[in-house]
């Protein structure tokens, strides 16, 4: 009987040790799964919004903002008229549009839908449809989530190596990763540029969006021709685009010449009126 009791105690002890070992292993595995899933799961809308805010704040530290209420209102209206008809009309914080006070000819979009156009680019637009072509191209990048794709994969893996608690705590290593992620995107927007495929896709999607909204898709071709002739002034970002000549090659056959319809003239008049009132 005593032998049986000893055996029973031994078995129970063995089981509890085995259970703790298994529990330990299970917890370790769960922790690994948690880290891996954090690394591989897609970035949420809310994360995209906060990344976008940091990227936009970074861009605004490099380029002055043109705080012109008349122009800001007009760019917002034209941009939203397009964004509402896009494949991604809603983002976490909504679309926002602003003008950078720079002579450079450039437009860029931060994650989540904060879109910038330079004064230089705005000044070479001759009508609203040309401005819409620029905005439609940038909105198409947001729809495709191209700015987020600019985060280097090693950075994503780096972020995945931290636990949720460590990341929420925002220690120095986490903040360094956070800031490097922002620089990954800003670097792509301002220097490196998107891939040629991403740019081509954005151009073609923009043509569809312009047409859906009732803008003249031919305005895109006009803008590309202007960009081609003002290449000396262009910002670095355009160097990574397919060359303007290449873009003209694939955009040209897709569009009809701009028809100077009554609607086009109405939009052209309000574009000129806004420029004149805003003094830009």
């Amino acid at each position: 009987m005593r032998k049986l009791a000893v055996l029973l105690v031994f078995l129970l002890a063995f089981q509890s040790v085995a259970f703790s070992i298994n529990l330990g292993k299970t917890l370790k595995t769960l922790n690994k799964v948690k880290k891996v899933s954090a690394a591989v799961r897609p970035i949420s809308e809310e994360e995209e919004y906060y990344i976008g805010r940091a990227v936009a704040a970074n861009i605004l530290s490099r380029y002055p903002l043109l705080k012109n209420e008349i122009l800001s209102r007009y760019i917002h209206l034209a941009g939203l008229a397009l964004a509402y008809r896009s494949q991604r009309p809603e983002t976490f914080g909504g679309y926002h549009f602003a003008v950078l006070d720079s002579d450079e000819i450039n437009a860029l979009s931060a994650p989540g839908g904060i879109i910038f156009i330079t004064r230089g680019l705005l000044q070479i637009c001759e009508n609203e449809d040309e401005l819409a072509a620029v905005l439609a191209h940038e909105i198409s990048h947001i729809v495709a989530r191209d700015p987020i794709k600019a985060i280097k994969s090693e950075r994503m893996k780096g972020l995945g190596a931290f636990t949720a608690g460590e990341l929420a705590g925002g220690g120095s290593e986490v903040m360094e990763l956070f800031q490097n992620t922002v620089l990954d995107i800003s670097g792509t927007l301002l220097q490196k540029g998107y891939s040629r495929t991403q740019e081509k896709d954005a151009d073609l999607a923009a043509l569809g969006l312009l047409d859906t909204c009732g803008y003249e898709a031919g305005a895109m071709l006009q803008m590309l021709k202007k960009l081609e002739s003002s290449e000396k002034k262009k910002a670095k970002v355009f160097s990574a685009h397919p060359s303007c000549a290449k873009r003209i090659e694939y955009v040209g056959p897709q569009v009809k010449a701009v028809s100077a319809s009554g609607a086009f003239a109405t939009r052209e008049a309000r574009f000129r009126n806004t420029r004149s009132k805003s003094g830009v």
Partner: protein
Amino acid sequence: MAINERQCMRKKRWLTAFLLCVLALAAGKALVVKVQQTNILSKPDFLSSSLQALKKGDRLELEEETGGWYLVKSPSGVRGYIHKSAVETTGSSLTGIMPGQKSASDQEVALAAKGFSEENEKKIKGSKGYNFADLEWVMSHGMPRAEVKGFIQEGRLK
């Protein structure tokens, strides 16, 4: 009890559990608002009138899919349309009926998991290389949908 009978009983239990899960999933798909603010609209069109304002985390019942839009019903009984880009499916309404489970906390965890949050943004505010003051100027310039509608009509857009 014979081994075969035991196995049979076990199989039956698993089958019952599986069927219960399938029934629960089929009971209705729930949607959760994933953007800061949006609206239930009277038509599947952004320029149609708003029937109810919604905020992040609000739950909706999915009734139908129409292109890029969902026909939904709010807990207060308002039926209308919401664009797919404003919501995410929860797969089922199970999370809503299980006590102590909130999808918002899942979102918070997911957000913290990559470190991009309001709290971490505060830590970089004021540091070199970020101009949040001008960003706030940009973000404060929203435009009511009614004005966008007027702009579209005036420019004879679609």
